[in-house]
């Protein structure tokens, strides 16, 4: 296994923070912390104030990380070329728009409220992503 024990403890603690953020937003405002939906509604409205605030909170966290750790926390981002990032972004945008959610909206909020749609979405995108990585390895492109 390619992860040391401290890594897994950080993963558990970070996951707890993500769950706390999603639960807090749900309890306080009734909303779902799904990032793709938040970005879409933040851009399109009609009501967009809280979505923009949520994104601003994430950017503050990102600024802190950039100042404190440089680009260390995004290791691996440099492996994808700009055209690759364009294709990846387009597919992620189209897919989360059509499927109504991503790893946060379906993977955390949807599963936390036992949504059948989210369970199907999570199983589908996990398998699709694992197969894609496997094909990339076969093609020598990983």
């Amino acid at each position, binding site marked *: *296994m*390619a*992860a040391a024990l401290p*890594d897994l403890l950080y*993963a*558990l603690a*970070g*996951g*707890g*923070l993500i*769950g706390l*953020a*999603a*639960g*807090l937003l*749900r309890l*306080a405002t009734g*909303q779902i912390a799904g*990032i*793709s939906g938040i*970005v*879409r509604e933040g851009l399109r409205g009609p009501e967009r104030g809280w979505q923009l*605030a949520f994104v601003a*909170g994430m*950017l*503050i966290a*990102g600024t*802190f*990380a950039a100042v404190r750790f*440089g*680009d260390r*926390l995004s290791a*691996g*981002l440099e492996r994808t070329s700009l055209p690759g*990032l*364009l294709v*990846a*972004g*387009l*597919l*992620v*945008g*189209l*897919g*989360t*728009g*059509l*499927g*109504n959610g991503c790893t946060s909206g379906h993977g*955390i*909020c949807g*599963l936390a*409220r036992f949504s059948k*749609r989210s369970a*199907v979405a999570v199983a589908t995108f996990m398998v*699709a992503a694992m197969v894609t*990585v496997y094909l*990339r*390895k076969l093609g020598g492109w*990983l």
Partner: protein
Amino acid sequence: MKVLTALFAGLLFGLGLLVSGMSSPDKVIGFLNVTGAWDPSLAVVMGGALMVATPLFAVANRRGTAWSGEAICAPRQQVIDRKLVGGAMLFGIGWAIAGLCPGPALVNLIARPVPVATFLTAMVVGLLLSRRD
């Protein structure tokens, strides 16, 4: 108040992604690479998030209304259709190309502005194309 809560929740969410290691495409691809040196971290992150979120969602559901007085919104869609499965498939493929999904992309924007802005611009185009209603 709603805006302040959302700002705080966004900050917590972003910190969670950074602490967990999920802002790194290497960690994400390491999890998706099931036939290689598999890294279970992403599953641990989801497990940790669900352990905290599930009881909080249950409390919200039982209350029926949020602290703000608004209803706990339930997505209207209930059916499992081709749009859901096809969309999830496209998302999975895109996710596996760069190891980036929307949350980590936002959190990495400041550290690596050029590649992440490229990804996010294409993502927004995709989001808007998928919903022209």
